[in-house]
């Protein structure tokens, strides 16, 4: 009767078949979910810039306020990348009223050239949303959401890199539960801020939600138009 029967060893295959049959879809879903998510693809993106500008030095050691350079962040959708003239305010070439810091530093040459009418600098965009997603900096900064929530501890980065996935799901999480991401407006650019008198951020946040009347909208048209 062997003709009719599978060989013994074929019994061993059965569990394997079963496992693959059931496991495959799960595996594929997980592969898709993690493999294709910005968590995997985008976080950690750290392009080299034309000028090795160190936020760690400027924002960290020197303690410059973010808004000195990114001065439209609290009034407009876009946080302006400073124009060359802003750099030259300190790294000027001895013009009246301009600083003379690192006057002849090699790495600053492109900046000076640009200032002198040469080619402008081409910074590489690090935090890049999809073109159909409209983000407004001022709307967040004015409601107590600090730079650090999306950009991380830039004040500790020599080279800026992306630390958050900036995925839709990630945005929505915060829009659903903003409390732990809020801080007093006067601490907005203090990336290292922690609540004093040992209160949790939740507690502070809930208070601030009242104070700043924070009601994040979750309508599609909030970001997609």
């Amino acid at each position, binding site marked *: *009767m062997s*003709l*009719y*029967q*599978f060989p013994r060893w074929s019994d061993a295959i059965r569990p394997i078949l079963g496992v693959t049959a059931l496991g495959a879809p799960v595996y594929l*879903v997980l592969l*898709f*979910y993690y493999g*294709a*998510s*910005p*968590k995997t693809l985008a976080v950690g993106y750290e392009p080299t810039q034309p000028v090795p500008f160190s936020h760690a030095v400027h924002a960290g050691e020197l303690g410059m306020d973010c808004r000195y350079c990114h001065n439209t962040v609290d009034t407009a959708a876009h946080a302006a990348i400073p124009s060359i003239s802003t750099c030259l305010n300190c790294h000027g070439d001895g013009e009246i009223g301009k600083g003379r810091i690192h006057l002849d530093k090699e790495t600053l040459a492109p900046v000076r050239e640009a200032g002198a009418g040469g080619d402008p600098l081409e910074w590489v965009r690090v935090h890049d949303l999809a073109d159909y997603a409209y983000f407004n900096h001022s709307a967040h900064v004015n409601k107590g959401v600090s730079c650090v929530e999306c950009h991380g501890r830039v004040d500790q980065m020599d080279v800026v890199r992306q630390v958050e*996935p900036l*995925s*839709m*799901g*990630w945005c*929505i*999480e915060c829009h659903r539960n903003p409390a732990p991401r809020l801080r007093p407006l006067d601490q907005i650019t203090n990336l290292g801020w922690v609540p004093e008198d040992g209160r949790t951020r939740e507690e502070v946040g809930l208070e601030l939600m009242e104070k700043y009347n924070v009601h994040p909208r979750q309508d599609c048209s909030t970001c997609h138009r």
Partner: protein
Amino acid sequence: MANAEITSAELDNIIDPPALVQGKGDLATITETVSRVAEIKPPKAWYVGFALSLGILGMLGAAIVYLIITGVGVWGNNQPVAWGWPIVNFVFWVGIGHAGTLISAVLYLFRQGWRTGINRFSEAMTIFAVVCAGMFPAIHVGRIWVIYWVFPIPNQMNMWPQFRSPLLWDVFAVSTYFTVSLLFWYMGLVPDLATLRDRSKTKIRRFLYGIFALGWTGANRQWHRYERAYLLLAALATPLVLSVHSVVSFDFATSQLPGWHTTIFPPYFVAGAIFSGFAMVVTLAVPARAMFGLRDLITLRHLELMNKVIMATGMLVGYAYAMEFFMAWYSGNKYEGFTFVNRAFGPYAWAYWIMVSCNVISPQIFWFKKARRSIPIMFVVSIFVNIGMWFERFVITVTSLNRDFLPSSWNYFSPTFVDWATLIGSFGLFFTLFLLFCRYLPQVAIAEVKMQTPHAHSHSAH
């Protein structure tokens, strides 16, 4: 629901049925007749047909590639007729895909012996039809590359599909139906595959049939389990016969478009589906039994019974047509009323009357036994019904859309060559699969037919 009752009622009327298996109906002959088909070289007709279908299938492929590269604008769809032929074809094929499960499951539960001759056949047909049907919703969307969004897969957008949408119910209903039908079909195939395995001469055949026969030995225990499982699957499949096309009808019924927004759609669609399904079985069985010499197993009686079902469901459908008009008038809703007047006498009147004459009038000839038993007549009628049922879906989809509420947006729909290519092409897909089935698998459930032989009956406890 209605259809099942009618069907059984119809069949109960049969007095003194002639034997379901004609000719020299001993077991060996049956096995021989059926199996031979899969073993000997097929007739020329098969090669011709297969080549033809394959060619048409190629055309379908080309059309789809062109469609996806260029955009759904290559079809005739427009504003306001945003759903054109693709959806018509979808519903048409899903309808065809009904007879299979009905015959296999429902008739099995009703213990209708006569089903055995044709069930394998119609189950195969079902599966291939659903394959064709499933293709259309996929290619008809604007951006097929993100169509997976209709499946509830966790994703970085934290977005789920919208479960209130009938289209989503469709996705689940049709895929469930497909899965169950496939299982049911395969289940039934197992013993016969074993038979083919045992008869097979070459190693490859033995190996392949062997794999799929799952080591069937025909032992008593196996038969016992088999019967149990088959019964369960039948029970499982039965509600699907009603559910699938009901859900498909929701796509239309749950909208608020005059001509779609109707409560009678579910039964009406199911009746129509069985109607078209049986017609398609006849269309296929008639040539097949001739081509492969199965006249003794798929007998005139089988065909006659099916014709009765066709006539019955045909009248059900006719009743639905009439009811739609009555409701439209009785509701006193001017938009509803206009839609139906427009159907019958508007720019698409031709389509409407084709539908009526094919679906309601042509089956009436089956009142006559002569006609019911005449191969040419039943073949022609079954073709008519297929055409008529396609037009039914066309009438529902297009004529309702082309003139809805605001006269300013009224427009006329006319198909493009790509519409034609996809419609005809879907038949290419269907027949390619079907011919392969005829060639390599037992077209008649050998084991089950044997139970209908006199011998079987003499043994069976009556």
